[in-house]
């Protein structure tokens, strides 16, 4: 193969870094690089090749930024309020039901369940500020244990969700709840209230997942007693069965995770295929995927057999790039479809 054909092949390969919509620009830059190589010899290929790839990647970033800036952000956020509020209420229902016999409920649980219930009702009725307040209360309560707050009160009152292993649903809820606050604030200031029938239907839809969860979870199984070893001088240790462990952890409910995973996957497929008609919905499911990208990786590596090293160090963070890339692709599609 002649030297010229080799350089032509390499520059053609480098020009593939340009996005499809800027292929003509890529061809101009590639041919300019070829002229430089013809004039100065193949040694400049080492300079021209990477510069050509860099130009293509910059063009890609520019196209992506334009698409994302054109995406219907406000509409997407507004469309998210009710589904996200319903998902939050369902999550806290799953957390609460296994310890429903612990009365009084405690301020923490009242705020979590009450905040998310208020968010669902207000989102169904398109009440902007009340949705935001309900979501904000839920967020602050869920975040407080991670800020070292609430640890000194009655145990049943402490909304501490870290289970010790598996998926920490409390932490995983924080970004989606913040997204819900943003979604609530993006509702129009003077949004037309839905007519009574529509409002009722929206409210029923919003409460449906949590209601189904309550019906499915009750009655909760008897809790395991707490086993303790009693040591006395001169005696063998004896095992005592104490009262049931009252720690208010949220166990990483496999049922909840499977339902949420199926719902998210279905939402992504449906919104991808219907992005031409409803670009805001595609953007909305992309946003949800961004907010749960890291817990999603954790769930995947919990339930899918993976090598042990994947659990350690930065690997879960690196793996989170995959759902994030998927989300960005969905969001870019929404931007492209919004402007034909």
């Amino acid at each position, binding site marked *: 193969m002649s030297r010229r054909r080799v350089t032509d092949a390499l520059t053609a390969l480098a020009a593939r870094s340009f996005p499809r919509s800027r292929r003509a620009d890529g061809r101009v830059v590639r041919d300019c690089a070829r002229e*430089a190589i013809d004039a100065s010899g193949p040694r400049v290929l080492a300079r021209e090749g990477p510069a050509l790839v860099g130009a293509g990647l910059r063009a890609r970033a520019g196209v992506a930024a334009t698409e994302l800036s054109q995406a219907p952000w406000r509409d997407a956020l507004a469309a998210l309020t009710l589904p996200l509020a319903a998902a939050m209420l369902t999550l806290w229902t799953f957390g609460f039901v296994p310890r429903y016999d612990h009365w009084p409920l405690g301020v923490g649980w009242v705020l979590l369940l009450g905040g998310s219930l208020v968010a669902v009702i207000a989102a169904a009725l398109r009440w902007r500020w009340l949705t935001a307040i309900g979501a904000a209360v839920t967020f602050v309560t869920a975040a407080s244990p991670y800020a070292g707050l609430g640890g000194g009160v009655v145990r049943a009152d402490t909304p501490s969700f870290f289970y010790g292993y598996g998926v920490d649903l409390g932490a995983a809820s924080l970004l989606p709840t913040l997204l819900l606050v943003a979604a609530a604030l993006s509702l129009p200031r003077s949004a037309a209230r839905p007519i009574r029938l529509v409002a009722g239907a929206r409210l029923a839809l919003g409460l449906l997942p949590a209601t189904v969860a309550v019906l499915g979870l009750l009655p909760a199984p008897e809790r395991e007693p707490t086993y303790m070893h009693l040591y006395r001088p001169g005696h063998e240790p004896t095992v005592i069965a104490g009262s049931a462990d009252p720690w208010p952890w949220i166990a990483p409910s496999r049922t909840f995770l499977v339902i949420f995973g199926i719902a998210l996957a279905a939402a992504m497929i449906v919104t991808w295929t219907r992005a031409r008609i409803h670009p805001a919905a595609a953007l909305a499911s992309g946003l949800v995927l961004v907010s749960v990208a890291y817990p999603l990786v954790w769930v995947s590596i919990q339930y899918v057999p993976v090598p042990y090293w994947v659990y350690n160090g930065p690997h879960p963070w690196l793996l989170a790039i995959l759902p994030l890339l998927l989300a960005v692709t969905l969001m870019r599609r929404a931007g492209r479809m919004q402007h034909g």
Partner: protein
Amino acid sequence: MELRPASYFVLASLLDGPLHGYAIAARAGELSDGSVRLTAGTLYGALDRMVGSGLLEVDREETVAGRLRRYYRITGEGRDAVVREAERLATAARVVQRRPASVKAARGTA
């Protein structure tokens, strides 16, 4: 607005008429005594930015020996910008050149 050296020489290379990408890079190299060396990738990034800010515009495209060339033309705004930059550089240069003793001393130590 202060121009970067590469942008300054790109604009300067287009003062005599429209040129295509490789010709701009070659001319900018000549005008700057080789201090500005632009690859095709960086050149087109700069050209895109300058088109975006109204200093240049695309003149035409033509295919020569199977290679696509895009010609650029300087706009009135681009001409003003390069002239202003030349005056700014000249003023800055005069500050030092008015002191021949300092210049001579610097050349003596170089």
